[in-house]
């Protein structure tokens, strides 16, 4: 299995975009060496605005740049990009529906060492509740690159959450991509798991575990959390007897909630794998913290079994 860094992919693609479209501008609040927006800075310093450690200001400045026809990408850790600048994103950007792109980097628990103030277990919820906001959570570096390109073309505000670590490459470089798509990663007939980010690979492992027990699990990568394609979602539920969601985020207001909202009139049980109303904590490794919060293949497999048992 090939592993690749999502944030490097993000930064490189941003710099690549900069050569194609003069409207692309990048704003940073002093985390450029982590978000990798520094790669754009090196190529296009005139279109790179370091605003200091001031995320709220950064979001509103981006609104002003968008109002003069630019396509600004603002960058910070996901927890600050979404939470610290929430009202600025809401008022300056989302109400007028401006073409601002927000990169929430070091998302989820992926900044495992820095603890609860730096781990974003609620960014999807914060961004998803905003009218006009598109919310993206790429599964790997390949999808990240495609998303950055699609964001440049997209009409309206968009948020992308980027994992800090290297993740397995699960998608095909040559496959077409559009915002809103969901991808069946593995076919199955008993249950379906809708997963995002790092939990896609965990869910594929769960499918393997369940196969040994005679349970067939369909695995779907839902990398556009909003807008969620309800018709495609229902199509992915065809013939199965249980739905499970798996995300590196609070079980409140994230992918699980979005799926439950979309399937609210379907007669099918739904189970959630995610963080159970807890803040983060420091850990020594990414795998260790994911296990601590129950974000493992085993946990997905158990939730699938429990949900199937509800029938």
């Amino acid at each position, binding site marked *: 299995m090939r592993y690749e860094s999502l944030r490097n992919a993000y930064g490189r693609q941003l710099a690549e975009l900069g050569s194609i479209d003069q409207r692309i*501008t990048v704003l940073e609040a002093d985390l450029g060496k982590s978000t990798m927006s520094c790669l754009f800075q090196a190529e296009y310093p005139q*279109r790179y605005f370091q605003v*200091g450690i001031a995320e709220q200001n950064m979001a*509103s*400045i981006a609104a*002003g740049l968008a109002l003069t*026809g630019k396509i600004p990408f603002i960058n910070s850790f996901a927890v600050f990009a979404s939470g610290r600048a929430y009202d600025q994103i809401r008022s300056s950007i989302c109400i007028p529906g401006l073409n601002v792109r927000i990169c929430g980097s070091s998302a989820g628990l992926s900044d495992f060492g820095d603890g609860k103030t730096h781990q974003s277990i609620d960014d999807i919820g914060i961004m998803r509740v905003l009218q006009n906001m598109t919310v993206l959570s790429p599964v790997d570096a390949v999808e990240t690159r495609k998303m950055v390109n699609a964001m440049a073309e997209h009409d309206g505000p968009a948020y992308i959450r980027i994992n800090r670590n290297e993740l397995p490459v699960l998608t095909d470089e040559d496959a077409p991509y559009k915002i809103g798509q969901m991808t069946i990663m593995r076919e199955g007939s008993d249950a379906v798991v809708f997963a995002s980010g790092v939990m896609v690979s965990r869910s594929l492992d769960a499918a393997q575990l369940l196969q040994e027990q005679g349970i067939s699990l369909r695995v779907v990568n839902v990398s556009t959390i909003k807008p969620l394609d309800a018709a495609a979602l229902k199509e992915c539920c065809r013939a199965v007897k249980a739905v499970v969601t798996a995300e590196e985020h609070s079980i409140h207001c994230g992918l699980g909630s979005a799926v439950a909202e979309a399937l609210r009139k379907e007669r099918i049980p739904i189970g959630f794998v995610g963080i159970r109303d807890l803040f983060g904590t420091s850990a020594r490794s990414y795998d260790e913290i994911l296990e601590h919060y129950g974000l493992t293949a085993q946990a997905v497999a158990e939730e699938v079994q429990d949900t199937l048992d509800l029938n």
Partner: protein
Amino acid sequence: MKYSHAAAALKKRSAVLRSHILDMMPPGKAGHLGGSCSIADVTAVLYFHHMNINEKDPKDPKRDRLVFSKGHAVLAQYAALVEIGYIDRKEISKIKSLGGVLQGHPDMKTPGIEAVTGSLGQGLSVSVGMALGLRMDGSRARVFTICGDGELAEGQIWEAAMTASVYKTDNITAVVDWNGIQSTGRLSEVFSIDRIAEKWESFGWHVIDIDGHDIPSIIDALEEADRITGKPAVILARTVKGKGFPFAEDSAAFHNAALDEQQFKAGREAVDQMMKEAKDEV
């Protein structure tokens, strides 16, 4: 007097703006009278003397931009946009009604409104972004931003002030509507922000301190701000909240309040007097 003709014409304009503001405040319907009237004279000079605008196209890329960071005072801006012709006069009576063009706070669906404001502290940052974007395009368009004095308590104002200074955006001019009163009382009693001029100076801005109701002073200050290069400029406009309506002047009570029939009538009389005086001068 150098400005006698222009100043007299602008005085009439500001009387008309106050007349429209009053019409947006029919008896029993609450509105932000105080802060709209304190900034009405600056608004009149900006739109009808200083700014480059295209009466036929509110989206002309070459236009100067005016952002009311103190979005609640947008009645003054609506009044000017009606006079320019961007907004139908009939909308005045429909303000803050379902389906109306004039929202309670600035909304970009309204022709001539440049940014969504109302959540205080954000408009100066948005203006800095506009100033940077216009400069990238080599545009000569300028950005003007109205801030409240109470709004200066918002930390983001100072984040924006630092950024404008770091990036030397001399195409931006801020105006502080220094009426000394915020929603619940006098600044000096509610949250005393002192040494306002020194604050802006220390943040790298050129500071101009004027009487915000004296039209020749406003004209001069805006021209001085234009001449400043390499740094942004701020005009501290000393104003009176509710200016023009004696019952509301220098009072927090009309920050956002409904007029009764008697006050509305007194307001109409005050406007008529203003119009008459302005006419006599022209």
